[in-house]
């Protein structure tokens, strides 16, 4: 594969850009910082596009590989590369960062430059997670990402931001340190290499695999988050500013599932099979029980946060039934959720900017005064429900179908999640958007401005595109998933 340093550029351009934005600061009311941030995020997005156009869909091998020694004493290398699984997440990250910069144009009350800089730096770090092929490099990006998020929630968050952000940080930090121990253990069994590709080839005893799988599980389950370690998410979402919620739901949650795909399944295939029942049970609990919790929420953001956990349940279910359809469905579901949850949080942000409350009771009849907003939000609500024709349908349908091929009962239980999902989403929509106008504040609402239409509209395009024509999304992941399934099917227990 040719290396043009594209991946490095995609990682470092936003990070350096972020520091430039910091240096520009809030002078002239923050406008120079805003435009610079927009420029940097657009540039990053432009850098990631050639990854898509230059991507070879006929191979499962890593592409755009870069490899240079980084810490020679520890045999740690600066090793980057992408396959079909990571490509979409990189594009999603750089695309959503552009939207977040635009969406935060006017509604950040203070220190706009620092706010945007945090998002740009996080952009680079998240792209880093998706293309790191060295375990320590992966870990560095994985952890470093917590710092800007910690600040975003803590500085620009709601009233209980301090509690939420420290809980968020400690939860995820606790999850990931055990992963580090697993990495170090693997290092000594893979012939002194931290390369993830070498880890994937390392033979491991059955017991060691179980322990490593569990260490990874804690890290990824916290991040996804899976029941019962999900409790940080509703707090973090409710207190985070809109942009923080968008990035958290759309990308950070995907990292846990990405970790399963990149690390757990290929490195510990036997343990994955052995503990698949556990994963399926936890996923079903998320799908059924968390969806029930979502129904009773009074806070819009909390409701969407719980709905995210339920939707991620489909993803983890899809990953651990080991069929091509289900895993591809899980990846499509991750992407779709990236668009839909981002859009839902942006919709709540739109309302919050105008009314300064997220309480469902405070709304009602919004459709009367904000027709454009109501129709866009309806599209996203339908996608959240999984209506055919939207992106939400493709992923969940493929997961349920793929699961049914091997485990009919879990598939049937999971399918009930589609109904409860419709329940909480439609009920939310009904209470907020439809009905008569009860509150005087609602009557005074203005419809979307051009900037908001641009942000929500572009997400709507992707939601529909992925819903009616998922083939290009699937083409990219196909070879990589086939290769992954092959790895999972091969036992690594020696002898």
């Amino acid at each position, binding site marked *: 594969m040719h290396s043009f340093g594209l991946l490095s550029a995609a990682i470092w351009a936003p990070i350096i850009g972020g520091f430039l934005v910091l240096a520009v600061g809030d002078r002239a009311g923050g406008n120079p910082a805003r435009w610079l941030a927009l420029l940097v995020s657009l540039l990053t997005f432009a850098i990631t596009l050639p990854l898509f156009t230059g991507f070879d869909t006929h191979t499962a091998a890593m592409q755009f590989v870069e490899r240079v020694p980084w810490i020679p004493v520890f045999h740690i290398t600066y090793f980057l590369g992408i396959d079909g699984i990571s490509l979409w997440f990189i594009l999603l990250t750089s695309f959503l960062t552009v939207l977040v910069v635009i969406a935060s144009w006017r509604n950040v009350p203070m220190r706009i430059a620092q706010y945007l800089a945090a998002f740009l730096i996080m952009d680079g770090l998240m792209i880093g997670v998706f293309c790191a092929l060295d375990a320590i490099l992966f870990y560095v990006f994985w952890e*470093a990402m917590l*710092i800007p998020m910690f600040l975003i929630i*803590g*500085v620009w968050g709601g009233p209980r931001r301090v509690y939420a952000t420290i809980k968020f940080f400690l939860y995820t930090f606790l999850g990931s340190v055990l992963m*580090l121990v697993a990495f170090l253990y693997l290092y000594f069994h893979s012939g002194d290499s931290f390369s993830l590709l070498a880890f994937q080839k390392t033979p491991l005893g059955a017991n060691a695999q179980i322990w490593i799988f569990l260490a990874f599980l804690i890290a990824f389950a916290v991040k996804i988050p899976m029941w019962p370690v999900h409790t940080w998410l509703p707090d973090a979402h409710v207190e985070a500013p809109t942009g923080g919620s968008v990035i958290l739901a759309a990308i950070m949650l995907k990292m846990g599932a990405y970790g399963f795909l990149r690390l757990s399944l290929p490195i510990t295939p036997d343990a994955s099979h052995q503990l698949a029942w556990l994963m399926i049970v936890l996923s079903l609990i998320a799908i059924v029980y968390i969806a029930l919790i979502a129904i009773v929420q009074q806070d819009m953001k909390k409701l969407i946060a719980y709905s995210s956990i339920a939707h991620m349940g489909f993803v983890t279910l899809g990953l651990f039934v080991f069929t091509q359809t289900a895993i591809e469905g899980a990846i499509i579901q991750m992407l779709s959720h990236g668009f839909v949850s981002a859009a839902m949080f942006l919709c709540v942000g739109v309302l919050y900017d105008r009314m300064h409350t997220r309480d469902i009771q405070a709304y009602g009849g919004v459709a009367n005064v904000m027709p454009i907003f109501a129709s866009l939000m309806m599209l996203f609500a339908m996608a959240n429900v999984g209506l055919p024709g939207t992106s939400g349908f493709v992923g969940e349908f493929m997961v349920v179908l793929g699961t049914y091929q091997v485990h009919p009962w879990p598939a049937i239980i999971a399918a009930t999640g589609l109904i409860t999902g419709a329940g909480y989403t439609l009920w939310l929509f009904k209470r907020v958007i439809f009905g008569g106008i009860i509150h005087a504040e609602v009557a005074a609402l203005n419809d979307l401005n051009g900037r908001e239409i641009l942000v929500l509209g572009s997400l709507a395009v992707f939601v529909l595109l992925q819903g009616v024509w998922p083939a290009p999304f699937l083409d990219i992941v196909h070879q990589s998933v086939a290769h992954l399934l092959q790895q999972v099917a091969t036992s690594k227990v020696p002898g």
Partner: protein
Amino acid sequence: MQNALFHWSFAIPEIWVLAMACVVLLVDVFVGERQRDVAYVLSIFSLLAAMALTCSQMGQTGFAFFGQFHLDPFTSIASFLVELLSLLVLLYSRKYLLRRALYRGEVFVLLLFALLGALILISGSNLLVLYLGLELLALSQYALVAFQRGNLRATEAGLKYFILGALASALLLYGMSLLYGLTGTLDLHQIAIGLVNVGGANYLLMLAVIFLVAGIAFKFGAAPFHMWLPDAYQGAPTPVTLFMSSVPKIAIFALFLRILVDGGYGSIEIWQQLFVALVVVSLLIGNVVAIAQTNLKRMLAYSTVGNMGFLALGIVAGTQNGLASAFFYAVVYAFMATAAFGLIVYLSREGFEAEEISDLRGLVRTRPWAAFLLLIIMFSLAGVPPTIGFYAKLAVFQALIEAHFVWLAVFGVLMAVVGAFYYLRVLKVALFDPPAEDLAYGADDPLAASVLTVNSLALLILGIVPGALVAFCYHALQGVL
């Protein structure tokens, strides 16, 4: 012995520091009150020159003074680092000392003598020489802690530090005497040979090692021998705390390396177990008790205890990599501690030490740059990438797992998470809380500010490109076993 000659040239940096300490003392007496800067600049010059002299020795190896003095890559590298750290202490503290009428020649002289003690500890190859270095370092520090004679807390801290420090020295000396009794020699390399005949199961040897480890743990500040540390750290003038938290850590590591590795590696099974106990207690006490602190200096003191626990993890591993990782940890910790205490020095003014955590309220509004640096320092202490603090922890855990101490590593990382909490709390106060109206930080001090900036940014930049520093520290320990 062919190399046991009187190679006095190996000791040029030490001789230089000694000579300059005397010169500074004399000059200060003659130039008088008005021109204190002369002594200050002269001290800085002597440190710079000492660094240059040490650099010029890099790569040489051998013995001097009939085998009592040792020059190898470790000596040169560790000496260079303690000289650099002493230089940082001086640069940080000029304004602080001026504002408190502590800007006196004696402070510089004591600092130079403490440095000399550290240098001798690093290069000594004989039990008596090591003890001499240790006492020189310790006595200078006792005096420095209590230097503010009028300050009740400082004198109390000085006295506590002196009594407990003297006890530690006694323990160490008793261990040394047992070792001498067993092998009949004070020379570390002769001791190593002598211990082969003694054998590992000897009760006297066990007793000797227990005393030696207890003494070293005392000096390191590892729990349960940490009682002097919070009081001494809190009571001492902050620049002295800055010195105590950096230079001696490297010097005491050298002491450990000389006595228990160069001399007593034959007794590794004994001291390894002792260090396991020290690690567990230090990590627990350091990280948990720090949470309860409201005083920043005291919190950082407990953080030292915890960090010495992490450092000792590398010692527990006991392998080539383990010792190298422990040294790397000591170096990284020393620079993190200088930055952390340097920040306190920078923010303080006369009558206001900026030492309570609540004194940092809303720092991001009043001093945004200092708040940014604080962010780097705290995340580095917590071991979060991409700061150098992470790689220090990575190194010790890597060595630990290589030596099959997986459960201890798991315990260690969990304690790192507990530790993260109190560092985050400092950040919470500085970044998320509204600024306090009644706080006024010290007037701008460009010298301390620029040193602090370089020191803190180095923690971040070395975290992004750590390769060279890691190689430097690991090179120092090459062939130590």
